[in-house]
Structures are given as C-alpha cells and as structure tokens.
C-alpha cells in the first residue's frame, strides 16, 4: 500500500475512527478474560479475511455489496467498544464521505450489529466491550495521515469508491493461529447473529436501507454476463464481487467488443491447429502454453495454460460444452499440475497430510493445557478487581480534596477503609507515612496538627485513639470493614507550592497467606508544586487513587531532583499529559507523543513484572523512561550523540531490557530511567558500577544543566 505511505500528497486522505473515552468511573475496569482473548487475537492477527467459498455460504446474512475487508474492520471497531447504530448514524451524518465510502461503513456497521447479536462464547457481549473501553464515544474524521491501529482508533484509506482499513496481515505462527481462530469465530458469528437479525430485524438496515442477503441475485446477474468471458479465457473472473451495474457493463462489452475478437481468435486457431472444434483448439493452445511455461519455469503460465488445455481435454471426453466447463477446467489444471510435478511435491504433500495435523494437534493440546494450569493473566497479574493485594484492600480518601491556594490554613479529614478480601485478617499492624514535595524542606504535620484519630468496624460507632498504633484492631473480618478517620491541619504559608503525600500501610496475616501488605496514599496540592510541564491527566481513564499519588510523587521527584532533565523534556513547549490507559499499554508505559496523552501508563505488564504504578520507585522509573522518549523528539541531538558514545555497545544490553543495541532509542530511555531510579526487578549493584559509560554520559549530557555530549 504505497499510497498510504506517500507523504507528499497528504490530501489523499484517510478516515479515522476514534472512540473518545467518557468514563466517570473512579476504579479501573476489571479485565474480562473473553474481552482480553478477543482483543489479543485481533492484535496478533490484525487483518483477516474469509475465503470466497465461506462468504458465498454466508451470503444470505451479509450485505449485498460486501467487499470482504469490512469483516476485519467490524471486528476491530467492535473490540474498541463501537456500537453498530452509532457507526451507522455517524457515517450517515458525515458529509465528507462519498457514497461508496459511506456504503463501506454501513456494511461495517451491519457486521458489528451481527456481532452484537451473535450468541457464541468467543464473542464478548457489547456491554462488556463498551465498559472495558471506558464507554467510548465514536468520532469519524478525515486525516491526511494514517497510523497503525491504536487502542482507541482505526484508520481507513480513501480509495476511489470505498474505504480500505489500514490493517496489515501480521506474520508468524501466533498470527496464523489467531487468524484461523478469528475466521472460525467470524463464520459462526455471522451465522448466529445474521439469523437473529433476519428474524427480528436490523436497526442498521432500518437506519441505512442497506440491502442484506440479496447478493445472490446480484451474483447471478453478474455471472450471467461474465461467464462466457471467464470460460473463454480459461480463468476465473471475480464476477461475484461486481455489482449489478458492472455486471451489465461486462455483458455489454462481451457482446459488442469481445465477441468479434474471440471469433477472430477462433479462426486463427483453426488455421494453426487444423481443428474446427473449439475445445480441441483450446487444448492445443493450452498445452502449448503449458509447455512454454515449463520451459521458462513460469508457474502461473503452467497453471493457467494447464487449466485451459487439460480442462478442454476433459470436456472433449465428457462432451460438455465449454460455457459450463470452467470448474472442470480448473480441476483438470490442478490434476495436470500435480501430475507434472508429482515427484517433486510428493514430500510436501506427505508432510501436509501427516506432519501438519499432528503438529497442530500438539500445539492445540499445549495451548489448551496451558489455559487450565496458568493463573488468569499469568503468574504475575492479580485477578480482575485486585489492584495491589489479593487479601487486603485499603482505600484512602481526603476531604476536601483540593487543590488549595497558598497561605491558607486547611483542615483535611482523611478516611481509610480496610477490607479483608478473602478471609479474616489477623496479626494486624499500621504504619503511617507522610512526605512533602517542594523546593524547600518541610516535614508533615504531627500532633497536635494530626488529631482526632477515630476508628472501628464500620458496623459500630468509632472510638477515639491517641495514635494509629493504639487504633490497631485484633481482627478485620470480611463482612465488616475497618474504618479509620483523622484530621490534619496544614498551617497557612507552611506548605505553599507543595505536594503532600500521605500514605497508610497495613500489614496483616490472611488465612493461608501470612505477611501480607497493602497501602493507600492520598495527595494534597497547595499552590503550584514543581511539576514542570507534566500533568497527571484523566484524558484517557481516571487515575486510581494510589496510582495517581505515585505518579504525582514521581513527577515531583523528577522535576525537583533532576531539574535539568525536566527542563529539557519541557523545552518542546506545551504540557506533557500523563494518562492512565491500561487498555493501550502493554507494559507499564508508552510514549505516544500526542497532545491529549503524551505518555500512557499501566500498572501491569503483558510480558514481564507488574507493579509499574503501585510501587512509587517503579513509577519514577517508568516516568523517566517514557519522558526520555519525549526528550528524543524535542532534542533529537541527544539521541544522535548517544548513538556515537564510545563504548556504549559493549555495555549493552541492560539487565532490565534485553533489547540491547538493536534499539538504541530504547537503550537511551532505559539509561536515563536507570540513572534516576532502578526498578524493583533490578539486577543488583548500582547503575554506576554496572554501566559506568552510560552513567557518565547520562550525568554529563542528559542530566546536566551544562551538557557535555561528546562521545
């Protein structure tokens, strides 16, 4: 697809579907295994298409002028929470669309409606996808550029009379497996959902007047005009995809233009071969072509000529007429081809018959076995709903939340709710921590400004305690959360332009799981704390409380302790929005460099260690790593200088990132992150001792206010 790549003709145009997140939920959406599987298959395969035979079998349930690409488009949009009727209405209202382009979208909308109504277990329910995608709102707009499929958008290239999705067939075993799986799911879903829509009616059809299930008539019309030509040429013309008008046009051309030409060719063949029977003429012609094909080693020429020649011979013996013999001809060609190359391809055939099925069966067995023995999401990911600890849930809420102006005395009431998730908690202990982030040193308020500690099971009236230790209960049962409240007075002027992070840690033994720890933090902002250009933003999804606090703390640390680095990152101008976007991100963070969400984050990792946001140090590490990608864009010279750093390749790969020198841009980001903070899965020693060349370069070039970036 060269045209999508042409950057000198931005007006060529693409259509982008973007689902804007609208959730107001304050908690992350629990991961649904069916949704996750569905999305993973689509990520692995990216593009897939049903074969013509299957489409023909399903034609009663499909739009009349289906091109075929719409099935993959529908799957991708459906997986992003797009609703069929929304798409149909949006397409109808989008005046910039041409009629054919709009029809592509109507087809796609109908297929989404089919998926919405399909009753098969592999297809997630539309409500689940809508929730998992944070209740998206669909927007369609024109764009001069195309980008790869994003978690919340799909691009289509404008063709002459239709839209083609910017989806590529992924390569590799996983992609092949996913593609086969999706084709199977699509076939079942179209039957299931299509039958239901035929019986109960379709909202998309009502909205768009799309024609469903009448494709057969069109096909017949197209075939009627095109069969003679197809047969005469000895190859299949894809008439079934032609519309009625095109079919008629082909018919007209065949009658007025091609017929005389064919007549002339027939006469010529008669002279050359000495035969008057068209079938014999074609046999000679085909076999001659096949022999020439053999001579020059042209497989297509062998196959096509074989189809004509041997197919015609088959017709001679069967007595059938040429006009109906095209399928026999193709069969004969296959037989001919097999006979020609039989010995050469015997091995592959045997492999196909015996080895492939056994291998596939073995792979399926391994995969299915793995599905039963592997915990949900792998060994490192908590089950849906759990954020940090499987046994203890801690929630901390400040009231009022702020932010507050400088020079005002504020009294904040904090409420901590502790729940036992899976059984009564015993051997409980509490730890209270507080930290002030500012350009000056300041301690958090203590007694008497930390006051009115009250605690007790939620079912009872809370009691007053002098300290948190004194408020520690003997047990916390599953059906009766333990609630602690306390007040903190922040004296006016003492906390100007600061970020105060207040953390409460609970240690306890759960049944069969001693030594559990869970924590919750709340942050309060006074004035304008040093956050540089960074903004912890809810532009993707709402940040869960603890993750938000850890990210705010990370921002503050980066800006206050590594100001030269932060200044460089911010030198590009504008805000660097930091978004919580667990759907988009595979592993902790992703720099997308867009104004809405410059960097996106998640706590989990699909491939490695989770905890990118639940651990404050990890949050600082991943923030620095992703900010370094932003830095590469705004100060590209640092990347160029790094690539020429003497001796850097000898130190790679980092023990935290195996990509090594194959991806120097990742090595640059990882170097900076390790300079600021090693992650929880660090391999021991210090960054300086393990990677002295990188440490030196980071210090004198990237983190220095007077950079020395010499090699």
């Amino acid at each position, binding site marked *: *697809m*060269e045209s*999508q*790549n*042409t*950057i*000198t003709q931005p007006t060529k145009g693409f259509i982008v579907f973007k689902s804007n997140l609208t959730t107001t939920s304050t908690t992350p959406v629990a991961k649904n295994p069916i949704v996750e599987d569905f999305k993973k298959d689509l990520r692995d395969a990216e593009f897939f298409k049903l074969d013509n035979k299957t489409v023909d079998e399903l034609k009663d349930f499909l739009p009349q002028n289906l091109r075929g690409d719409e099935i993959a488009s529908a799957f991708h949009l459906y997986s992003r929470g797009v609703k069929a009727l929304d798409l149909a209405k949006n397409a109808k209202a989008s005046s910039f669309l041409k009629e054919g382009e709009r029809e592509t979208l109507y087809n796609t909308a109908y297929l989404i409606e089919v998926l919405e109504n399909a009753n098969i277990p592999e297809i997630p329910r539309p409500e689940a996808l809508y929730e998992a995608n944070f209740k998206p709102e669909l927007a369609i707009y024109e764009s001069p550029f*195309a*980008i*790869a499929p994003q978690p919340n958008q799909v691009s289509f290239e404008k063709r002459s009379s239709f839209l083609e999705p*910017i989806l*590529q067939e992924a390569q590799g075993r996983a992609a092949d497996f996913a593609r086969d799986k999706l084709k199977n799911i699509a076939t079942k879903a179209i039957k299931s959902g299509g039958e239901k829509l035929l019986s109960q009616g379709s909202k998309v059809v009502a909205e768009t007047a799309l024609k469903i299930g009448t494709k057969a008539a069109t096909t017949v019309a197209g075939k009627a005009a095109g069969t003679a030509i197809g047969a005469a040429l000895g190859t299949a013309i894809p008439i079934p995809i032609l519309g009625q008008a095109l079919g008629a046009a082909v018919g007209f051309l065949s009658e007025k233009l091609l017929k005389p030409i064919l007549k002339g060719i027939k006469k010529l063949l008669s002279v050359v*071969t*000495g035969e008057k029977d068209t079938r*014999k003429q074609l*046999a*000679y012609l085909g*076999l*001659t072509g096949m*022999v*020439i094909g*053999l*001579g*020059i*080693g042209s497989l297509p020429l062998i196959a096509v000529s074989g189809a004509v020649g041997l197919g015609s*011979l088959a017709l001679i013996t069967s007595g059938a007429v040429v006009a109906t013999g095209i399928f026999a001809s193709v069969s004969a060609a296959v037989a001919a081809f097999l006979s020609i190359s039989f010995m050469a391809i015997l091995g592959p055939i045997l492999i196909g018959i015996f080895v492939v099925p056994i291998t596939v069966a073995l792979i399926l067995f391994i995969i299915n076995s793995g599905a039963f023995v592997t915990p949900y999401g792998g060994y490192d990911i908590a089950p849906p709903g759990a954020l940090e600890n499987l046994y203890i849930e801690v929630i901390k809420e400040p009231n009022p939340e702020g932010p507050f102006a400088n020079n005002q005395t504020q009294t904040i009431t904090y409420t901590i709710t502790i729940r036992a998730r899976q059984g009564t908690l015993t051997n409980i202990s509490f730890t209270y921590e507080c930290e002030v982030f500012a350009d000056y040193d300041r301690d958090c308020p203590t007694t008497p400004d930390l006051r009115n500690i009250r605690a007790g099971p939620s079912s009872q009236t809370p009691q007053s305690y002098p300290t948190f230790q004194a408020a520690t209960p003997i047990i916390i049962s599953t059906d009766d959360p333990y609630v602690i409240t306390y007040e903190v007075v922040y004296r006016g002027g003492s906390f100007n332009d600061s970020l105060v992070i207040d953390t409460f840690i609970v240690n306890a033994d759960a049944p069969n799981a001693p030594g559990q720890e869970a924590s919750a933090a709340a942050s309060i902002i006074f004035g304008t704390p040093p956050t540089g250009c960074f903004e912890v933003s809810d532009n993707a999804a709402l940040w869960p409380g603890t993750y938000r606090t850890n990210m705010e703390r990370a921002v503050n640390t980066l800006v206050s302790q590594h100001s030269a680095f932060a200044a460089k990152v911010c030198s590009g101008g504008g805000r660097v929005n930091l978004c919580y976007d667990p759907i988009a*991100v*595979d*592993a*902790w*963070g*992703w*720099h997308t*460099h867009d104004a809405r969400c410059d960097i996106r984050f998640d706590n989990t990792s699909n491939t490695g260690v989770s905890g990118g946001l639940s651990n404050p140090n990890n949050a600082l590490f991943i923030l620095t790593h992703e900010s370094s*990608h932003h830095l*590469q*864009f*705004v*100060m*590209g*010279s640092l*990347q*160029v*200088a790094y*690539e*020429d*750093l*003497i001796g*850097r*390749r000898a130190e790679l790969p980092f023990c935290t990132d195996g990509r090594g020198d*194959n*991806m*120097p*841009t*990742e090595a*640059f980001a990882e170097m900076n992150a390790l300079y600021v903070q090693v992650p929880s899965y660090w391999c021991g020693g210090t960054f300086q001792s393990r990677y002295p060349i990188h440490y030196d370069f980071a210090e004198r070039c990237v983190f220095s206010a007077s950079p020395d*970036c010499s*090699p």
Partner: protein
Amino acid sequence: MINLLTKNKFFIILVIVLVITFILNLFLKEKPNDKESLPPKSNQANYQSLTPGTSTKEDVLDKLGKPVAEEENGGILNYSSSSSERPHQVVLEENNIKLIKEIVTLRDEKKTIDIQNVYGKPKNVLYGDRSSAGFHLFIYPENGIAYIGQAESGLLLEVWYFPPTTFELFKTTYASEYSLTLQQSQ
C-alpha cells in the same frame, strides 16, 4: 489423448518448443539485480563518486581504500566514519555495490535539508526501531537515496545509497524490517 498424439504431430512440435524455450531461458534469464532496479537516472545519488548498481568492489577499494573491517566473507565492507561506534558500510552483491550506508554524526553538520535541496521532499517514509524517537526512514526510490532522520530537527543518522528502484522493491530488498505504519514500542 493418445489419439490426439498420433493423429497430429502437434506434440512433437511442442517438445521442440519446450527444448528451445528451456535453452533460451537459461541464456536470456534476467539477473535478479535487473528486476530490482530501474534504469539509472541522471540524478541518481552517489557516494564519493561510487554509484550503486554500476560501481564494482574494485571501484570501492580504489576510491575508499582498504576497509577497516569486512563482514559476511567480504560481502560487507566497513569504513571508518566520524563515529567510532558506527562505521560506513558498503554492501556488495556479485561484485557490484548493492547498498551504501553513510553514517552521519553531529560533527558532520549534514542535515535533511541538504538532501531535500537536491531531491525535493521525500516521496515515501517507513517506520522502524528508531521511530519511537521520531527518526524515520525517508526514501527517494527513483533517485536511489534514503535517509534516517528526524523531521522536527532535521537531524540525520544515516544516508543510504542504492540503485534506483520502486518503493515496493526498496521495501523488500533494503528495508524488510521497516513498516508502513508506526508500531508500538514501549
């Protein structure tokens, strides 16, 4: 079918045609390079007077001297650049230059605008490992030149020289690890 064989001598002619076409095919078959290249253009890019597709290994040794290192049994010749970490590379195929990768550092003071002043805006772009930092592969297939650079800053990392070709063939021949679209790199 046997009747057809005996009734006509057509098949004898076929055998003769087969033998002739086979022999002709052996002698006249185009070399792979010919399929990957377009005819040289007057404005084909060259490096140090070396023209990919036509210049030979001998020309390379004559112009650039002895390489600092060789890879793949002499198929790749490395020459020192202004970076000690990244050498210039000359890739040979059947004794002809297939590709030259010129390394550009900050010290070279060479920018994307220098190439654009000669060849105009790049016609095509591909995305690779460095795209997460905004460094993409910009290509002028018909002129036999491409560069890895950053549009925002005009910085260059590499300039590639190759025989003029089509974009599709460039992708498969020289940039198979690059993509048409931006990929997620975390």
